C-alpha cells in the first residue's frame, strides 16, 4: 500500500495526467454517448459515465500528497498534520447517492417509454417538437 504513496509523491506529473486525464476522458466519452447515441439505455449509460468522471475529479481535488485517510484510528490520534482534505469526500458521498437516485428514475422512464412505444430508439419517440 505504501508503495503507491511513494509513487504518488515521486512521479507527480505522471499521476496528475493519469487521474485528471482519465476523469476528463470519462466526461468526454459520457458526453459523446449522451449526444450521439440513439438507444435510450445507452444514453443513461453515458450519463452515469459522466457522473463517474465528476466523482473522480471531486476526490482528486481533495487528495494531499503523503496524507493519510481522515480517520483517527486508535493509536494515531495525534496525526492531524498528515491528513487528506475530508470535505470533498463528504460531498462525493452525497453526489454518488444522488447520481444513483437520478439514474434509477431515468431507467424507470426508459422502461415505461419502451412499454408505451415498443421501441427504445430516441428518434422514433420524438413526438414532442420544439
Amino acid at each position: 500500500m505504501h508503495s503507491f504513496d511513494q509513487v504518488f509523491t515521486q512521479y507527480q506529473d505522471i499521476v496528475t495526467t493519469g487521474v485528471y486525464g482519465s476523469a476528463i476522458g470519462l466526461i468526454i466519452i459520457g458526453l459523446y454517448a449522451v449526444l450521439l447515441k440513439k438507444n435510450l439505455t445507452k444514453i443513461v449509460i453515458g450519463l452515469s459515465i459522466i457522473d463517474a468522471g465528476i466523482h473522480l475529479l471531486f476526490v482528486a481535488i481533495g487528495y494531499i500528497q503523503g496524507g493519510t485517510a481522515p480517520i483517527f484510528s486508535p493509536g494515531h490520534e495525534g496525526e492531524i498534520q498528515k491528513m487528506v482534505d475530508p470535505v470533498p469526500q463528504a460531498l462525493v458521498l452525497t453526489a454518488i447517492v444522488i447520481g444513483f437516485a437520478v439514474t434509477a428514475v431515468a431507467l424507470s422512464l426508459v422502461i415505461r417509454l419502451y412499454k408505451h412505444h415498443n421501441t427504445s430508439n430516441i428518434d422514433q419517440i420524438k413526438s414532442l417538437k420544439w
Partner: protein
Amino acid sequence: MMALIAFSLMAIVLVAAAIYAVLQKDLLYAVISTGVISVVLSVFFFLMQAPDVALTEAAIGIALTTIIFIITIRNTTRYEDDPKDNTLEKF
C-alpha cells in the same frame, strides 16, 4: 516501479472500459463495462486515501447501478438497434 505500472495500467483500463461501454452494441456487455469502471474508480478512491467513498462506490456503483441497468435491459431490448424492434414494420 511496479506500483507506477499498475497505476497507469488502471488509468488506461478505466478509459478503455468507458470507450467499450459506449461503442458496444450488445447492451449487456456495455453495462458490465460500466461495472468495471466503478471497480477501477473504487480502487482509485482507495488509493487516494478516501475509504468511505471507495466503499460507497463499491456498494452503489458496482452492485446496485449495474443491477438496475440489467433489469432495464430485461424489460427493453438487449441489442442497440434491435432487429425485432417494430420500427421497421411502420414504414
